[in-house]
């Protein structure tokens, strides 16, 4: 349910007891008001009834006064008549005064001339006897007068003389008097006041008096009168309007006054009260709902915005938490949310930087859906544009080197099967541009409550550099191992020859052929070992940076010629044809080392050129450099070996063994020594069987008579240069 609904429910729930309370109070209030109204109406009724009685009593009093006239003592009707006429003139409501015997026979009637026959009152007044016997004034009911033909009533007073009723004096009163009285009561126009005689006939009425006089009162009023002499009852008028009627029968006269009050008037009070209550309630409800909506909006809008923002953030969009809530708690929430996001962003950035620096990428595999998500770092490792990863396991395996796919699959499968939480595997990937990279992958399986794998998340690191370094190390190590093995072998063989020769020298005859042979072997092999040791030591020294050059100025061309000459004299060129082309080129270099260079190159040329082959040496100056070239028509160098010629320990395939074996250091030394002189060494061959040529370049200087003085003053410079292998 929404927040607004909760608030509205809250408001309504609060209103409910109030509403109940208001209803209860309202009910009592309305009742009170009605009661008040009723009491008011009843009081009014009493007042009018009293006024009616007063009117009647007025008439009775006047008659009583008349009845005391002495003329009646003697029966002097004529004199009485005069007095009566005078009184009649003062009573506009009276229509007649008559005097009658207790039997009812009238003896004087102002409406008849004296001496005319007079009626008997008992004939038309049912209550005549009652009046006589009462010996008190009475008011008769309404009758149609035989004289006037109109409805009127009589007020009768017994004339008492000596304790006996001598006559009954009556005044005939027109009902109009009571009508006037009623009019004077200021009864509201829609109320109907009615005066009834003892018999229940209408004497006077505020509405339509002439039309209704003499009619019996309404059924309901007559029924009410039988129940009680005063009260209040709901009923209907003779015009059939719903009314409430307060009524009262006078105890004195027995006449009734009743007021028909339209029910609507009475009910109006109640309706007004109820209407007020309901209006108030509805107003309160409306207000409550309106307030609930406003408050709800103030609460739910910022909350909804927060939800939208976090959704956007979850998708990775850069959203800012809105800070505009009016409710303080929500504002605080938004602020803390924002700082939480900032902290997370910071952590994310740090993580990304770390991943970046470590060349790591992260991935996640949803086992159920099969979807794979890669971080941008991982895409970069795989050489893809950000966002271009296919999102499936197949898309990943596509990049893995075919030889490693099985290994990767097995590592992951093992992760799933066994309890180990983490798998670790190294594999190669092929980037879109074809380059190969080594990747180290670590993954962790996350399972749900029942142990079913749900997700696999992992980190991949580009370890190509490390792998290459490892490989290079291994290669270097292997090369060193091979070198040491070879060294061991190359040194042990001469030693074996020497020990055997030594034995022979012991065992054989001193002057014999065997002894001579042994001596030759000793000479040869010690020379050979000496060479080996020298080469080895030289290379070591150069590598450790401990080789010092002792430079001097000399002519390279003549030096080379000299070396060739010496070797030729020693007979070393017996199997080959060696020619030279040496032009004078002056250098400032270490003579001994340069000689070593020449020797090594010549030595190689002889070694790799079969008997009868040609070796050529040349020295020339070119572009400020002294260029020494040694070419042979020998075995040549395969193109793939060309680049590695000057690396130490590298030997030609199918190299000669036995006494002529070397350590593969000759060319390495040549290169190192040339570089120590700030020069260079290079090899060239058209391929196997096509001979080879080696070129060494050194800085040339001007011929001596120009530079001699400068050099003579200079100290021999020790050049220390660290060479990398």
């Amino acid at each position, binding site marked *: 349910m929404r927040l607004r609904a909760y608030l509205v429910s809250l408001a309504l729930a609060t209103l409910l007891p109030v509403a109940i309370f208001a209803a209860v109070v309202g009910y009592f209030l309305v009742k009170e008001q009605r009661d008040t109204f009723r009491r008011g109406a009843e009081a009014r009724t009493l007042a009018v009834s009293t006024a009616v009685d007063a009117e009647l009593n007025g008439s009775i009093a006047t008659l009583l006064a008349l009845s005391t006239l002495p003329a009646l003592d003697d029966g002097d009707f004529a004199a009485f008549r005069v007095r009566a006429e005078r009184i009649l003139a003062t009573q506009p409501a009276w229509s007649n005064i008559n005097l009658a015997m207790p039997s009812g026979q009238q003896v004087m009637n102002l409406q008849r001339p004296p001496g005319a026959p007079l009626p008997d009152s008992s004939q038309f007044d049912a209550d005549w006897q009652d009046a006589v016997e009462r010996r008190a004034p009475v008011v008769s009911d309404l009758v149609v007068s035989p004289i006037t033909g109109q409805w009127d009533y009589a007020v009768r007073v017994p004339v008492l003389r000596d304790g006996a009723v001598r006559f009954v004096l009556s005044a005939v009163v027109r009902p109009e008097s009571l009508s006037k009285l009623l009019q004077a009561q200021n009864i509201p126009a829609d109320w109907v006041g009615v005066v009834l005689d003892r018999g229940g006939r209408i004497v006077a009425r505020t509405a339509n008096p002439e039309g209704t006089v003499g009619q019996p009162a309404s059924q309901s009023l007559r029924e009410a009168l039988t129940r009680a002499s005063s009260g209040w009852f709901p009923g209907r008028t003779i015009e059939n309007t719903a009314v409430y009627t307060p009524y009262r029968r006078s105890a004195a006269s027995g006449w009734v006054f009743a007021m028909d009050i339209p029910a609507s008037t009475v009910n109006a009070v109640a309706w007004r009260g109820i209407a007020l209550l309901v209006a108030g309630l509805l107003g309160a409800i409306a207000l409550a709902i309106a307030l609930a909506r406003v408050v709800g909006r103030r609460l739910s809008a910022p909350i909804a915005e927060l939800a939208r923002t976090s959704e956007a953030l979850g998708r990775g969009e850069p959203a800012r938490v809105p800070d505009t809530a009016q409710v303080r708690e929500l504002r605080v929430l938004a602020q803390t949310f924002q700082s939480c996001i900032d902290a997370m962003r910071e952590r994310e950035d740090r993580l990304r930087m770390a991943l970046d620096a470590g060349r790591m990428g992260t991935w996640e595999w949803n086992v159920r859906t099969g979807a794979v998500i890669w971080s941008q770092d991982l895409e970069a490792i795989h050489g893809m544009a950000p966002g271009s990863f296919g999102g499936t396991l197949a898309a990943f395996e596509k990049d893995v080197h075919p030889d490693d796919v099985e290994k990767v699959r097995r590592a992951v499968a093992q992760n799933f099967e066994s309890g180990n939480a983490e798998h670790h595997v190294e594999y190669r990937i092929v980037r879109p541009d074809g380059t190969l990279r080594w990747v180290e992958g670590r993954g962790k399986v996350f399972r749900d409550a029942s142990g079913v794998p749900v997700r696999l998340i992992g980190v991949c690191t580009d370890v190509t550099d490390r792998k290459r370094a490892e490989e290079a190390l291994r290669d270097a190590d292997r090369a060193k*191992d091979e070198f040491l*093995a070879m060294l061991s072998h190359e040194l*042990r063989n001469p030693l074996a020859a*020497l*020990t055997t020769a030594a*034995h022979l020298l012991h065992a054989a005859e001193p002057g014999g052929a065997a002894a001579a*042979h042994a001596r030759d072997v000793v000479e040869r092999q010690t020379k050979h070992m000496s060479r080996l040791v020298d080469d080895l030591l030289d290379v070591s020294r150069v590598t450790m940076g401990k080789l010092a050059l002792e430079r001097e100025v000399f002519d390279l061309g003549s030096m080379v010629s000299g070396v060739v000459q010496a070797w030729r004299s020693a007979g070393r060129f017996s199997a080959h044809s060696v020619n030279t082309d040496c032009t004078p080129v002056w250098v400032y270099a270490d003579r001994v080392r340069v000689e070593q260079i020449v020797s090594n190159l010549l030595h190689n040329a002889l070694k790799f050129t079969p008997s009868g082959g040609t070796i050529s040496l040349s020295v020339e100056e070119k572009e400020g450099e002294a260029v020494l070239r040694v070419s042979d028509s020998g075995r040549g160098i395969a193109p793939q070996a060309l680049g590695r010629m000057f690396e130490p320990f590298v030997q030609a395939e199918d190299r000669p*063994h*036995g006494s002529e074996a070397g350590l593969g250091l000759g060319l390495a030394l040549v290169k190192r020594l040339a570089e120590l002189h700030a020069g260079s060494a290079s090899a060239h061959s058209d391929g196997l069987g096509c001979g080879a040529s080696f070129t060494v370049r050194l800085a040339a200087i001007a011929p001596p008579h120009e530079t001699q003085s400068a050099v003579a003053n200079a100290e021999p410079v020790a050049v220390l240069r660290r060479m990398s292998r």
Partner: protein
Amino acid sequence: MIVKNILIADDNRDFSSTLKLALEAEGYSVYLATNGREAVLVQRKTPADVLITDLAMPDSDGFEAIDAFRKEFPATKVVVVSGAKRLDAPLYLKAAELMGAHAAFRKPFDVEMLLEALKALAP
């Protein structure tokens, strides 16, 4: 049977020729070969009672020689002398012994000891 003929297979001529002289001084007849294949050929022509072979030789090394001799000349005793081209020398020699060599020497060795071993090989 007295050991009379010896075949030396080694690519270091200075060594093998000197040893030949030393052995001849002791009364042996000595033939030379420079690799395993050559050793087999020489053996076929002039059979020797003992083969003294280096392990590291170009083209066809000592192991090949030992293997070939075991198959073709099972009666011939084999002595291994090696410059131990490999770093793990003891294992190398052990391997040779496992392959059927009767003795193994590491260069440089005392020639007297080799002579003793040859005498011991005589049944």
